[in-house]
């Protein structure tokens, strides 16, 4: 008799625990599903390129006297996902050593346009937008093909130019222009930068 009572009570307790677990579990799954964004923009990366050429001192008359163009590069931090109201935006933000600018690049969720929104903001040292920025457009980037990268030319003052030539380039080299490259292809994202 006692054994039967204990057994019934144990079964009842076990059933209640199972039901609670099921209900709570289901609710937690529902809650999780509600927070999971339906679309997360793919990873992308950003780097600043300091393009330059070099005077070829050994060139004779009639020969090309400047080198082919090349560039030095500095990377911005890796992209990260920010979720707000259940929508995912991927952003890159930060600075580089040789420019007095603060960068913020966002690829937002898809809405009416299938590609999502691309936003780029560049602020100077006083927090004012740099000439030509911000820019907002449909996301121009894809993970493969010829549309995996896009450049944004960055204006530089004479003082910044002089500093770049003095601290980053070598004797006969001169800066031609500076730009921010945003890229989504695997080659670009996996690039390593000198420490």
């Amino acid at each position, binding site marked *: 008799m006692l054994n039967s009572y204990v057994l019934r009570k144990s079964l009842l307790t076990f059933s209640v625990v199972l039901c609670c677990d099921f209900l709570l579990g289901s609710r937690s799954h529902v809650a999780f599903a509600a927070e999971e964004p339906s679309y997360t923009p793919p990873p992308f990366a950003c780097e600043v390129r300091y393009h330059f*050429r070099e005077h070829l001192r050994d060139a004779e008359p*009639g020969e090309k006297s400047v080198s082919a163009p*090349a560039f030095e590069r500095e990377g911005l931090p890796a992209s990260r996902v920010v979720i707000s109201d259940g929508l995912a935006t991927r952003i890159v933000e930060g600075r580089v050593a040789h420019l007095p600018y603060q960068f913020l690049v966002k690829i937002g969720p898809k809405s009416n346009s299938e590609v999502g929104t691309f936003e780029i903001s560049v602020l100077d040292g006083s927090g004012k937008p740099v000439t030509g920025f911000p820019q907002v457009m449909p996301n121009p980037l894809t993970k493969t093909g010829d549309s995996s990268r896009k450049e944004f030319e960055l204006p530089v003052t004479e003082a910044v130019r002089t500093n770049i030539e003095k601290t980053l380039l070598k004797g006969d080299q001169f800066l031609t222009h500076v730009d921010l490259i945003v890229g989504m292809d695997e*080659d670009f994202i996996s690039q390593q930068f000198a420490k």
Partner: protein
Amino acid sequence: MGKIGTINDRDIIEQDDGSVTFTAGATLDGDGANGQFGQPPCYAPASFHGPTLDVLGNAGHPGNWYGVVTDTGNEKGTPIVQKAADPYPGAYISATSLHLPDNDGESLPSSSPFKYVDSATVPFIVVPPMILKGVKPIVLGCRAIVTNSKTGKSTEAVVADVGPHNHLGEISVACAKAIGIPTGTTYPANSGGVSSPTIQYQLFPGIPAVVNGVTYPLQHS
């Protein structure tokens, strides 16, 4: 086998067979593209409505046109604009270090768009002065093989331009496309390329390049 030198921790080796090898990334050089074969030129005036391979900043600005051919032959001159009879009217003329002759083997004037190697259609590579000076046979115009170890794609190329002394690994836009290296959306030469050392270069100094059926001249530098 001997080491010619090292640039950015990458050794440049002269092999026993006389070839020169190194492994590096690849930046892109649009110089020499003047629409010779119908593809976009490297540079054009800001008012030009059409694609170009590179941004105008790499060509220069009034008073200092370092990247295009000018009427005075130096940077202080005015850029020469291609005329109606030229291959890409309205575009500037950009130069490579390697100069091509006319069909009779005579040298072309500096103002001829055909004097230079077309980055848009000809796979070529760019080398630093260290390589030009590091071997006895002539390097400019010689045969090269470029291989992308990531894609497995390889192409014949010609050594056609000279780069900065401390930069190793640079190729034409056509070469990038041939071996599967990404190019830019708006300006292919400006935002394309790879920085990881996955590109293998082999040069054959003294042996004229033959690319797409064209034999290139060897040129002292």
